[in-house]
């Protein structure tokens, strides 16, 4: 998965070209290094088992039907000592009481246990496995864990990642109970009233114990340490009800249905948290045993109320018309803007049914449709519109004194993010719908976009959520579906592709740009007229070979031969050490994404292949600031061998020299890679055994997920999105995408 790992270590030398005797004895003869540990290999589970069983029993014909099913899933993780186990059961029953009233009830429960690990990011497990010093063994000669990696003479010492996975307890148990029921009453022939209640009870039980035998999480914290325990117990109850009144009538060629309704929803989350440290032993892993215990509890709620109406009308199934209106209120918004109004209309025209169309055999369906509507988004977390207070305690008179500070802006005007979307679509079915072509053009303008943005510290904090700007997305989605038979063989094919163009139209407030990120990682910058979250930094145009070259170039203060040469974007003769010369160095939005499914079946055998891909977008490999760090404290990529060594031996033009950091680790285009890729996501082969004895049918199958990836991108996952949301395209390495092979059977009695 990680194709450029290597075991080259370059030491941080205080002299640029040390004499042989000046190198530490321990590192003087690299060929004599006893160990070459591939930490990534050590922490990954190359043969993770996976089992999944489901049994379903359904019964009933006519007025009452019921179904019971149970399932069991057991999956080992792609990282050692991780895994997921789940047991679930479901029962439902529904039926008619009489001709007017029907009702149903559904109950589902599941319990899962996950042994997890913090894997994402440079300082988490995967990152550490990549940069941990390979010259140290996993185990000592006596078979015990080598409990401190590195640390020789002050080089960053770290925890042994394998030991950490083995000795740390990290469990998350989740229990879900979901129940819903409905009552439906038909009256006056065309009216129907349906009332439903949905309740979800969710609980989480998390436990993390770090024994004293492990080194600390950061750098230079050798064991033994004080053992620590973190426990968290949370429970949420989500109750929602829907009341729907519908009227449906068909007369002659007209068909009409009208819907009125409202829906209300409330969720409450309660949590109890305890942290303890200083345990007398690593055996009793409960808070009771801790010398110091810190506990806390927490509760949060939100509510949502919506009224809606919808009218659908069609004439001869040829002219279709629909209009809807939704008014929705959310507790999350400021007092002045709790409510949002969301109208929508759509029209459809089935051209193929028109008289003027030839009654041709080959044309099965031709339809033109269009719609316009507004939708809302309130995904901002609870209480965001309020100025909340939090504790910041001090000491007065030699003892604890409670202190309180304001920890967020009050924003009574915080309101719904609204998206206005226009859709125009064409559906074409040919040859008895064996070939179906769909095209859809859309344009969506999102106004009052809700974003967490950085604010000057004078506000008392550094980030706030606000309705920050206006963004446009427009694009085209095309899909082609084809099926045919040649003799006994049936072929299926489906291809879809979507092109999206994204543009910031406006940024509200004082500054016209939103910068997220940092000088030494990269910035995601949004500015009007450009796509959202563009990767921004210096443009790297080469590596300085000589002092003369440095002198002849725009000033880069402190540059030495072997460091990167940047482009003087503003042309003032100086590469200034701030954002002045930073420009867009990558577009994190794919030009298009696509998927292709191919399938065939013959005589009980079936084959399906799924390809997916994305083209022309960029990812900033932030992790390489570490894995190409030439300080000699980290394991580095094999390509570090081809770094700049001298004017005569300049290497591959991408790796900078050792013993310096300035003009190397700033956000710059050297770390930007094209992440275009084609992924063979799934291949499956199955065989259905015809009916034998009491078995109705049995299907046996084998399948492979994420079989292979075709790309020039050097990371393990080109779809990575470290920062998430509107700040895409940053790779710090994350949980590996597993290649899964599975086989199974589906048996019907």
């Amino acid at each position: 998965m990680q194709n450029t790992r290597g075991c080259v270590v370059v030491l941080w030398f205080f002299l640029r070209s040390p004499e042989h005797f000046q190198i530490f004895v321990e590192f003087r003869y690299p060929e004599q290094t006893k160990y070459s540990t591939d930490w990534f290999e050590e922490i990954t589970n190359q043969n993770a088992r996976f089992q999944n069983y489901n049994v379903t029993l359904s019964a009933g014909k006519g007025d009452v039907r019921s179904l019971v099913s149970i399932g069991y899933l057991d999956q080992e993780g792609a990282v050692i000592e991780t895994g997921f186990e789940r047991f679930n059961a479901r029962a439902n029953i529904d039926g008619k009481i009489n001709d007017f009233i029907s009702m149903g009830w559904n109950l589902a429960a599941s319990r899962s246990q996950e042994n997890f690990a913090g894997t994402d990011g440079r300082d988490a497990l995967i990152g550490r496995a990549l940069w941990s010093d390979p010259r140290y063994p996993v185990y000592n000669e006596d078979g015990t864990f080598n409990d401190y990696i590195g640390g020789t003479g002050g080089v960053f010492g770290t925890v042994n990642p394998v030991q950490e996975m083995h000795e740390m307890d990290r469990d998350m148990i989740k229990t879900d109970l979901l129940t819903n029921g409905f009552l439906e009453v038909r009256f006056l022939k065309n009216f129907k009233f349906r009332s439903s209640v949905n309740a979800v009870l969710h609980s989480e039980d998390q436990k993390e114990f770090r024994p004293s035998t492990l080194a600390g999480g950061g750098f230079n914290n050798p064991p033994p340490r004080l053992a620590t325990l973190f426990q968290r117990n949370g429970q949420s109850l989500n109750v929602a009800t829907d009341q729907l009144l519908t009227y449906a009538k068909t007369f002659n060629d007209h068909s009409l249905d009208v819907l009125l309704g409202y829906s209300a929803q409330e969720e409450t989350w309660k949590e109890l948290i305890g942290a303890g440290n200083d345990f007398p032993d690593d055996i009793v892993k409960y808070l009771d045993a801790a010398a110091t215990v810190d506990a806390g509890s927490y509760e949060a709620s939100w509510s949502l109320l919506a009224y809606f109406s919808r009218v659908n009308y069609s004439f001869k199934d040829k002219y279709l018309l629909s209009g809807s209106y939704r008014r929705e209120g959310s507790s999350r918004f400021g007092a002045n803007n709790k409510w949002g109004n969301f109208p929508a209309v759509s029209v459809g025209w089935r051209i193929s049914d028109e008289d003027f169309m030839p009654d041709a055999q080959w044309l099965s369906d031709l339809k033109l449709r269009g719609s316009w509507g507004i939708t809302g988004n309130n995904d901002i977390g609870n209480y965001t519109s309020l100025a909340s207070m939090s504790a910041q305690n001090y000491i007065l008179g030699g003892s604890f004194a409670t202190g309180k500070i304001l920890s967020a802006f009050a924003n009574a005007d915080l309101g719904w993010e609204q998206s206005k979307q226009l859709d125009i679509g064409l559906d074409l079915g040919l040859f008895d719908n064996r070939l179906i072509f769909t095209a859809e053009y859309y344009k969506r303008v999102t106004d009052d976009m809700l974003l967490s943005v950085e604010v000057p510290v004078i506000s008392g904090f550094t980030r706030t959520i606000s309705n920050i700007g206006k963004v446009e997305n427009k694009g085209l989605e095309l899909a082609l579906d084809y099926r045919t038979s040649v003799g006994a063989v049936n072929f299926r094919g489906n291809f879809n592709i979507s092109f999206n163009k994204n543009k910031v139209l406006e940024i509200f407030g004082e500054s016209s740009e939103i910068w997220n990120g940092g000088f030494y990682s990269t910035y995601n910058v949004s500015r009007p007229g450009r796509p959202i979250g563009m990767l921004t930094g210096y443009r790297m145009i080469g590596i300085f070979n000589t002092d003369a070259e440095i002198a002849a170039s725009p000033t880069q203060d402190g540059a030495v031969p072997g460091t990167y040469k940047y482009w003087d974007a503003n042309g003032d003769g100086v590469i200034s050490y701030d954002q002045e010369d930073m420009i867009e160095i990558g577009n994190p939005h794919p030009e298009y994404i696509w998927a292709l499914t191919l399938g065939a079946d013959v005589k009980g055998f079936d084959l399906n292949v799924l390809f997916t891909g994305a083209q022309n977008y960029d990812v900033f490999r932030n992790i390489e600031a570490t894995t190409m760090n030439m300080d000699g404290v980290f394991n580095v990529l094999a390509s570090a061998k081809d770094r700049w060594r001298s004017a005569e031996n300049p290497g591959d033009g991408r790796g900078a020299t050792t013993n310096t950091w300035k003009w190397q680790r700033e956000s710059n285009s050297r770390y930007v890679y094209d992440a275009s890729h084609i992924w063979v996501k799934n291949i499956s082969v199955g065989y259905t055994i015809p009916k034998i004895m009491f078995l109705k049918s049995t299907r046996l199958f084998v399948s492979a997920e994420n079989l292979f990836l075709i790309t020039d991108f050097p990371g393990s996952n080109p779809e990575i999105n470290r920062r998430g949301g509107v700040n895409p395209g940053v790779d710090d390495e994350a949980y590996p995408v597993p290649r899964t092979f599975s086989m199974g059977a589906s048996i019907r009695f």
Partner: protein
Amino acid sequence: MKKKILIVWLAGFILTSCQDEFLTIVPETALSSATFFTKEADFIQAVNGAYVPLRSIVNDRAWLLGEMHSDNTYYSRNILFGATEQQEDIADFAIPTANGVTSNAHVLSQYRLDYQIIARTNQILASIDAVDFDVDSKNNVKGQALFLRAYAYFELVRYFGKAPLHLTPVATRAEAALPLSSADELYQQIIKDASEAAALLPPKSEQDPGRATSGAAKTLLGSVYIEQKKWAEAEAVLLDVVNSNEYELIPDYADVFSTSTSNKNNIESVFEVQFLEGSAGLNGNFIYSFMPRPISPQELVTITGTSNPQPLDGEGNNTPTPDIIAAYEPGDERKDASIGYITLSGSFRTNKEYPYIKKFAKTHALHGNHGTNWPIYRYAEVLLLLAEALNEQGKDGSSYLNAVRSRAGLGDAQGDMREAIFNERRVELAFENKRWFDLVRTGRAVEVITAYGNRIKADPQAYYYPAGAAPRSHAFTNLDLYYGLPADEAALSPHF
């Protein structure tokens, strides 16, 4: 649960006023400003919260920007340890700065901590007058808030030379960016706030230990006047402090500084930042930052006395320079009280003995957790400031200077008084983050630091470099008197 389902079920049927109720959910486990700032206790808690950033300032930053950025201390270079550029840049006078902006993380952090104090005190000052409670208590809270705001701006103006002047709470993102105010404008406000604070606050004997007092506000004011060379004003306000009879010099210099658990806010202390040893998270750990490294548990425990010493790797900071060691006159008792020596078996230097700051290094129970308070203003400094204010007006301030000298076991000052006071401040207040500011305000920074840089380059091994190692090529190339403004804040403001 049944009741809840019923309420949710009915929610749609009910009247508009009840709808709003259904959609109004306030946090039950955290206070919001809607219910806060309504009574005396709220304001007392709010002002307590405004002191908090001071802890991080003195524990993590001020010694980097105010002491190691001078000829008093340096880092002890660990050649195997790479990721220390940002602090080395500060000590080496090599902070990358462009267009008046720097990306140095310590500078950013200091800036943010000062503005946190300002934001919190602005909130208090803006809402306190609308709430009715005991006038003495109200004056006390207002006085503390004004003192803290003045102190934060005084730090900002000395670090940056200019800064946005916010005096009211910022309620929206749009209000959060103001243009830079000049040093004069900032000083005007600092003097106004500190003067008001001095009038509102009670004397130390009537105040909770740890809170700002009228003496603290007057000392701050005196220090500001001296910075501005307003000698007569400084003299008046500092004399007030002396005549208040609230403060005395402690006879033995070694007893002036707090231990981890006692001797806090003592008779010589005018204002200090409070720490508390233990598991409440209110402890400090600055003496660990000041240890030369790599240091073994056996070596470290001789200083800390903890039951669970751990090794410290990486690069040591704030190591006293040969210059400060040489600055003590023969017989000065403060030298041994301020500076200790430790031999590090793991050192890469030929001479494995390092000096370390001893005056704060008091024993405590657990590794990395001590309760030693940090002095901001001491009475000894009040006397030295007063001596300076008098001397600069041609008056005789020698008695105040000599009181400080005599406590250190030294005779009366000889020679040029201005030089004598300047040198006295250096050794009396060594490692209390005064040195860089003193160099700048006396106009000596460039001259002193240039000479200091040349000494390091000429003999790096005397400044704790291992044999063969030399200062980085760009060391001592940025002798600006002010730090660049932080880049991350500049990115959020159209004004700088």
